[in-house]
């Protein structure tokens, strides 16, 4: 294993490096999100079928993508914590869960808002929305288990196992839900599977997705730093840090 792997495992080093990265990421995230929003709302062309209501995809799609990648990161970090007993990985996994759950809620809410003008009702048992709802349930399960177990390291390990079980299940759930959906609603109007979106439409979407990722990195680092301080509160370096301020 290379040296950086060991360094990453040290909470103190992690705290310092995230402290240095945080301002840069914050600025980039802010610029991308602001620029992307203005571009998406004011300059991107309206959809020929849905008019302006389609513009909510600029929130819906990034949050949906992020909710999924966040689960992946949570499970991978959990696995690293399990195998190498790395505390920082446990902390990353723990910090991921609420962010991912929030993203899933955002995706569900924007999906519902989008559904009203498109389908005429706030909720439709569409395959994507249903999968997202189940993903949200998986997040809730991990968070509930984590808070139910008192011992910090046991909680981290148990949630990691659950997250990994969920990771194996996500493709199965997605496939089964899609299959169930086609069985019950044969010809639904698919929202996101448009053939060839024009560049003026997907470029702002790309900007928003990258912006969301940066925003995710920022909030993850902030949560992680809090978690590090909380867990290491009795160690010398945290005490020095607090006294020096």
């Amino acid at each position, binding site marked *: 294993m290379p040296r950086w792997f060991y360094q990453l495992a040290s909470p103190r080093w992690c705290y310092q490096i995230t402290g240095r990265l945080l301002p840069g990421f914050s600025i980039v995230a802010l610029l991308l999100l602001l620029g992307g929003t203005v571009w998406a709302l004011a300059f991107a062309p309206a959809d020929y079928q849905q008019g302006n209501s389609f513009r909510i995809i600029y929130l819906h799609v990034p949050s949906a993508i992020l909710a999924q990648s966040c689960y992946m990161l949570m499970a991978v970090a959990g696995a690293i914590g399990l195998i190498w007993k790395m505390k920082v990985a446990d902390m990353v996994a723990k910090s991921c869960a609420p962010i991912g759950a929030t993203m899933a809620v955002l995706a569900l809410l924007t999906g519902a808002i989008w559904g009203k003008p498109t389908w005429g009702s706030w909720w439709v048992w569409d395959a994507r929305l249903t999968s997202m709802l189940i993903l949200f349930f998986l997040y809730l399960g991990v968070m509930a288990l984590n808070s139910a*177990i008192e011992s910090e390291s046991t909680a981290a390990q148990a949630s990691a*196992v659950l997250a990994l079980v969920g990771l194996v299940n996500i493709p199965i759930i997605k496939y089964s839900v899609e299959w169930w959906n086609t069985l019950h609603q044969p010809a639904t109007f698919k929202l996101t599977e448009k053939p060839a979106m024009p560049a003026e439409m997907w470029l702002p979407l790309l900007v928003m997705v990258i912006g969301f990722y940066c925003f995710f990195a920022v909030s993850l680092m902030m949560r992680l730093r809090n978690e590090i301080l909380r867990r290491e509160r009795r160690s010398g370096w945290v005490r020095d840090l607090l006294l020096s301020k």
Partner: protein
Amino acid sequence: MADLSTNPATDSRMEHRTLGAGGLFVAALKRDLMLSLRRKSELVNPLIFFLMVITLFPLGVSPEPGFLAELAPGVLWVAALLATLLSMDSLFRTDFDDGSLEQLLLSPQPLFVVVLAKVLAHWMLTGLALTLVAPVIAVMLFLPAEGMLGLMLSLLLGTPTLSLVGAIGAALTVGLRKGGVLISLLVLPLYIPVLIFGTGAVQAAVTGLPLGGYLALLGALLALGVTLAPLAISAALRISVSG
């Protein structure tokens, strides 16, 4: 008396007799079945629960036969799923409380063999029992006769997966005093694929469509469960006992 301080790798003392994985599996299965049979009162609880949930639907929705028949595949599967889930919490609980689980984890024997045997014993007394009584209860919901075979086959292939996945939840929550509600939160989302393919199979059987595809999918889920779930269960048990 042999000297104990020497390394047994060079010691003939170890060659007493070896109980292979098969023998251990059978011994564990027998033990768990025997334990369950000595607690007869708890044995029928999942079945009674199954029957009661089924009774709620005509009362709560409508006793009209045509309507119930349409609802039957989903209702039967959901009730079977909940009955399995309800019985899951006790799977490792008594073993944890009386210290048997500690002894099991400290055994040189492979843990997953005993875990698989325990899950099989659990399934035989819940999933298999549910499968056998399901046709009787299906009649009460006016499920057409053509659907019976589909119902039984799908339950036969689907409920073992429910037991396996449920056992992961049971293992993760065994160290907690109040694991009952939590286990549902953890496990229910994971049950969704089995529910979808299970009801799909019954509906296909009712409408006279071929069943093979559904059963193959349920079988695939079961195969995946048998290979991966014991790993997760073993890991979860070690974590729960450690904490």
